[in-house]
């Protein structure tokens, strides 16, 4: 079923409304990772805004890629079935790797007492690239609101409209991410940054466990 052009305004407002209504769920799932990541980076307000922008950029890329796929296919596969378990498992393991690497960088760059190396070159590129990749992977989180958006986008009438639907949906959800900028206020409190980096390490282990469990479930599913 496709949506006629005369219904295009309600479709975009529908996307925005759905996005805003789902944003708290996105904040809950992304906040788990972003809060310690941003806190551990120890940037000020402007720096944190920039980092959040990079993360959201990666997330938008994930949404748009998914939107393209859904728009081209014209339908949504059973995202909670074996395909969903596989995607979820692999992306969780990838997130685990990212978090673990970021934790290792943060912890090895200092002991107790000196601020994290701001670093240029490779270290800075790795840090920012990792954050963009994290955004991309969390953008592919197949939660309820995401699945609902996918189902609606599949009915939007073609890949361009599906991509646009997801872009507006993304805007709606991203409003909820803005408070994360407040992590820039804690920049000077070093123990908090240490706790944040250790938290990334623990989260990395959790996501490795979570991804393994999803893949076990996929394997059991057959």
């Amino acid at each position: 079923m496709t949506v006629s052009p005369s219904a295009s305004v309600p479709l975009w407002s529908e996307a925005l409304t759905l996005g805003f209504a789902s944003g708290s769920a996105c904040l809950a799932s992304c906040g788990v990772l972003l809060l310690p990541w941003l806190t551990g980076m120890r940037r000020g307000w402007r720096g944190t805004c920039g980092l959040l922008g990079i993360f959201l950029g990666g997330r938008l890329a994930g949404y748009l890629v998914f939107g393209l796929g859904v728009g081209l296919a014209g339908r949504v596969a059973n995202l909670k079935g074996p395909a969903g378990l596989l995607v979820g498992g692999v992306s969780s393991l990838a997130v685990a790797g990212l978090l673990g690497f970021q934790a290792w960088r943060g912890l090895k760059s200092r002991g107790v007492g000196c601020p994290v190396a701001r670093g240029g070159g490779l270290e800075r590129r790795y840090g920012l690239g990792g954050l963009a990749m994290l955004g991309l992977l969390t953008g592919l989180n197949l939660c309820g609101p995401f699945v609902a958006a996918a189902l609606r986008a599949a009915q939007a009438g073609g890949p361009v409209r599906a991509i646009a639907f997801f872009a507006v949906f993304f805007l709606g959800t991203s409003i909820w991410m803005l408070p994360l900028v407040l992590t820039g206020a804690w920049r000077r409190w070093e123990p908090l940054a240490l706790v944040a980096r250790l938290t990334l390490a623990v989260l990395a282990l959790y996501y490795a466990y979570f991804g393994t469990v999803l893949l076990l479930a996929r394997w059991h599913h057959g």
Partner: protein
Amino acid sequence: MADTRTLSPFRSWPRAGLLALPIALWGLVMMGPTLSGRDGTAKLTAFLAETFMTALFLLMLRTGQTHRWRKVFFITLGFLFPVGFIIELVRLRGSMSIPVEHLIAGDTPFCFMVIPMTVIPAALNRVLIFPGSILPTASNPHAVATMVSLWLVATLVLGKAWCAYGCFFGGLEEGFASIRRRPVLKLLNPVFLYGPWAVLVTIVLLSAASYAPTYCQWLCPFKAVTEFPEITNGQTLLQAVIFVSLFLGLVVILPMLTKKRTQCAFFCPFGAFQSLFARISPFRIRIERSACKDCGVCSRACPTLALDAGRVLQGAPRDACMRCGACVDACGTGAARWHLQGTRAPSERARLLFLYAGWGFACLFGGTIIASSLASLIHLFR
């Protein structure tokens, strides 16, 4: 070790006995319902536990040593609790594993470790993310309300000292840490002292996002000696492997090698949570700089690394201090002392006041657990 005979006014037997009387009476009141009951075994073990606690308190007063006698109680509690708990589980269910029926019926005992994880979902949606019951029932006396009330009282009375006078898991580590005479490993990067906070932040965030007690599902080392979900598939097997590995590593092996309570110092999120309430208690440990010779004995004695050279210079341990008294007992100059906030009370008076509260709670909670666990053990062999 300090020659406390010249320091304390409470050394004589008669005087120590008099001062121990309130605790003896308190113990009798706590055990009273059992002592007047019909179960002969329960009466015997209640009497033994009460005598045990009173005797230890008396020795604390007589010798001026806190940590040495507290440790005896704590290790006894740490080893007897799981024994009694497991015996009861096997008697009621036939195994240590939690059957799915209990999960559905809300009969899973609520543990204090769950409290930090439940706060956000309860505050936002009034939802309890635990397969237990809110109020106690015949099949589940360890309901949420019961354990929360116990925790609240413990926090008001003890604050962070819960970890040395209340926690029935800490005694296990303390026991294993006491086996060797000297540590084999002395490492321990101080960065990892923030570990408990990292684990706390992780489980609070994940529990709020997943509406599930992630620590219980994934990270609790003490599942190895209490109860755990039935192993029915790959996931539950993986969970069991994690629980047992964490227990062996953090509770058995590392304490044996380092002579420190490594699970408490580097991992336990509830300890970090209790540290938030460390300043509720007016009882503190202070290092009197004028008397301190910077010998480092207090730092080496601290089982949770709450004291280091920097903290000694500052005159106070970190908020992770659990008032176990090890540093005070070890100090040769009397620089490490008990302190009642805001007062100039002598160390011994501050200690006595603290012990009345702390040991009173220990009798109320740990003493009754020791009694009931002993009773379960005796019933097993009869």
